């Protein structure tokens, strides 16, 4: 009864959503693995930047935790160094840092040692009082994936998973090593946390241009009628990196390109591009549609893997006058490693909209350039009035290509055919270009800024849900099974090229060729 009589909290009459940024509730952010690379390079710079831009509540605190013994001041000093070094496209301001640093705390502790959580609890109670965080806590697991289940169990055992306010946990990828381990991890996590409190981060989904796919598709009326098997010939998704494993050889050798990129980032991007329109733009509706799309992907039979998937590994090469090592020559990598540094797959979506339209996904390291894009190749016009004559005869022209560039030059371009000026009917493809950076000159928030804010606000739209993770593991599992039992003749592509020839052959089966992005 007393709860019924309690007055509802006053609605803030000072809000001005037209001009102010989204409202972020007060909270404490606990980072496990606070002395790690991700914290230094991404998390703390993002939090500082959000503070600098006045986008987080003044009532907030960050508690870093890791095994390294440190005082609060030492932690602040270290983080100051990292933030000033890794802050992207933004100034570092000493006064603002000093103000920010007052909300930084550190608790040394081992995730495996229960008493560490008692210390953490004490600190959380303290900042709830001193920093008015209203009992809201966002835990960020930036640790070895093998510690996830244990850390969450300990949070539960120490009653840190509930309190005066909300409790949310961000978990970094990978979510498991394969389908079985992913399911097991989910099971363990769900013993303590409800799915609504779990924020599985996939930083690709936080990129402005990936979010823009939704705006582009569902905010405009002209593209959606064409967005199906009748008009789309095929789709190519490319995520190429020019760098190698950059000192992460040990980790990468266990993961490989298929696990590292296609199982998570690229399957989520594919789902965003190909999902059905949600009925309402909210987290669950958007995620329902993504999950439905992933479930509609035809799961390969083991005997089909050789036909629809290609593994590659880069070998040494001289690029730009510089000798680049092959993967097997990288530090911490076995000299006969069977790890895929390149993976390409052909997927088919067995639903009404996309039946029969192939989706080609490729990703690799040591490619000619860093680029991530999605290309929608539309079908040729029904009648070839403007076929082009080539050495091999008449060629059907398929000029309409819509490219959504995710990085580095975020934007969208549409290629279409146009008459060349002058007499005669000579045609040539031209491109209509929208450049995200130049059309909106202001600095875009980084993916981590976006995702951290979303988690504080409680908007999981850009986070992956258990069923999505499960579905994407199901897609890649048969390939992992077959590749795990195969002996590859690696390396099969030199550094600085677009991958192995087998990948071109895979597309040639369907009469297609890879674009050169």
């Amino acid at each position: 009864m007393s709860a019924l009589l309690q007055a509802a909290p006053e609605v803030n009459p000072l809000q001005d959503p037209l001009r102010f940024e989204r409202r972020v509730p007060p909270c404490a952010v606990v980072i496990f693995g606070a002395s790690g690379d991700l914290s230094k390079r991404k998390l703390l710079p993002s939090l500082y930047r959000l503070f600098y831009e006045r986008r987080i509540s003044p009532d907030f605190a960050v508690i870093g935790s890791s095994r390294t013994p440190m005082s609060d001041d030492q932690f602040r000093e270290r983080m100051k160094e990292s933030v000033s070094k890794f802050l992207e496209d933004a100034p570092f301001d000493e006064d603002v840092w000093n103000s920010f640093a007052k909300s930084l705390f550190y608790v040394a502790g081992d995730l495996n040692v229960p008493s560490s959580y008692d210390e953490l609890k004490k600190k959380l109670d303290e900042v709830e009082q001193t920093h008015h965080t209203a009992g809201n806590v966002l835990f960020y697991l930036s640790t070895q994936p093998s510690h996830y289940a244990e850390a969450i169990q300990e949070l539960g055992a120490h009653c840190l998973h509930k309190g005066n306010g909300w409790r949310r946990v961000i978990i970094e990828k990978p979510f498991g090593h394969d389908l079985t381990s992913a399911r097991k991890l989910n099971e363990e996590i769900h013993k303590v946390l409800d799915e609504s409190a779990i924020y599985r981060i996939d930083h690709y989904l936080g990129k402005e241009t990936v979010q823009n796919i939704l705006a582009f598709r569902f905010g405009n009326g002209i593209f959606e009628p064409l967005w199906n098997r009748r008009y789309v010939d095929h789709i190519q998704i490319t995520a190429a990196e020019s760098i190698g494993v950059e000192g992460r050889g040990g980790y990468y050798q266990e993961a490989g390109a298929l696990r590292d990129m296609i199982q998570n980032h690229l399957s989520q991007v594919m789902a965003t591009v190909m999902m059905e329109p949600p009925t309402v733009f909210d987290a669950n509706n958007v995620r329902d549609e993504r999950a439905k799309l992933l479930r509609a992907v035809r799961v390969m039979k083991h005997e089909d893997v050789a036909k629809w998937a290609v593994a590659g590994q880069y070998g040494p090469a001289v690029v730009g006058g510089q000798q680049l090592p092959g993967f097997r020559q990288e530090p911490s990598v076995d000299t006969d490693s069977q790890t895929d540094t390149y993976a390409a797959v052909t997927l088919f979506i067995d639903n009404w909209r996309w039946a029969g339209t192939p989706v080609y996904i490729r990703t690799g390291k040591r490619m000619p350039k860093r680029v991530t894009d999605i290309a929608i190749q539309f079908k040729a016009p029904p009648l070839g009035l403007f076929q082009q004559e080539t050495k091999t005869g008449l060629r059907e022209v398929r000029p309409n290509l819509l490219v959504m560039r995710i990085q580095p030059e975020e934007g969208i371009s549409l290629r279409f055919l146009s008459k060349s000026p002058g007499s005669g009917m000579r045609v040539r493809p031209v491109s209509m270009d929208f450049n995200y950076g130049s059309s909106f000159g202001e600095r875009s928030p980084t993916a981590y800024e976006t995702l951290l804010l979303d988690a504080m606000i409680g908007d999981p739209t850009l986070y992956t849900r258990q069923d999505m993770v499960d579905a994407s593991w199901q897609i890649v599992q048969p390939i992992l099974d077959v590749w795990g039992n195969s002996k590859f003749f690696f390396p099969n592509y030199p550094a600085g090229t677009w991958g192995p020839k087998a990948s071109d052959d895979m597309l040639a089966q369907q009469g297609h060729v890879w674009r050169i992005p």
Partner: protein
Amino acid sequence: MSSTVIYPAQPEQILKGLGKLWTSLGQEEKQQGKPTVLRACAMTLIVATDESDGAFSASQTIAELMREHPSRGIVLTISQVAEHELEARVLAQCWKPFGKAQQICCEQIEITARPEAWPNVGPTLIGLTAADLPVIFWCRHRAALEPTASAENKAGLQAIMSIATKAVVDMQSFSAADALKILAKLQLQGKTVADLEWTRLTRWRAPIAQIFDNPARQNPFSRFKSIEIAYSGDQLPPCALYAGAWFSAPYKAAVLFVQEDSFASGLHRITLKADSEQIVFERTAKDAMSLHSTNGQQRCYTYAERSDKDLMTEELTIGGNDHAFEVTFARAREILNEQR
């Protein structure tokens, strides 16, 4: 890149000049054998100015705004010394994003009119607006805004207001009382009217509003019964009045304006007072602000005077009605009446 003077400044001639300009930009592209120029336009932005506008360069500001808000810019300068009654020149403002080969270009039309020709400029401007896109009128012609404006200036202003979707003015150099009169008059024309003095306040308003987002806060906003606004300068600046009006609008809190000496003119400090708490947000140095509460909260911010470009960038993102400003404006009028 710009054209020679177009006179008489008929829309057809000006548009022809623009066409030639794009053709010549396209020729450069052809010579280089790859797309080098991207044409961008999201609105027509008309800037009216006069010789008293000093160092302000409308062309330069439009060029800077172009990155966020590409427009067909029309700069109308009213000048006693113009050679012709009405003459025009077209030019393209281009910029090349860092590391990219392609330039983004926006077209600009500079029109110079003698004061007596200003009232007749309407038909020219109508022919020059970009089709199907909003027309934003940024009036920097101070004399035309003044309550004592001449008939010519009034008619000139009216000519542009009639085709504008939204008008933007800056009342910074007016007293708060005059500003309200001028804005009320402009609003009578049924167009959205924005004041950059209000835009300046965003960086004051947002941090204070944020404090009250915390539902666990001991003192909700309704407990702050009085507001003190400190400013420096000879007269109450519009932004100080807006600040007082905005904070007092929800619960009709009492507002006290205090004139103080400070290192900079304009709004200096906002103090919200409740029985058991006081929140102060103030400029502590030329480049710093501090927000502190008697309950122990404290936070520092950087402060930088907002440039015209910065203010317009914010203002141009608001296409429809600005409800918060409408409420504040109404409350500001009440406060002034109460204080009389």
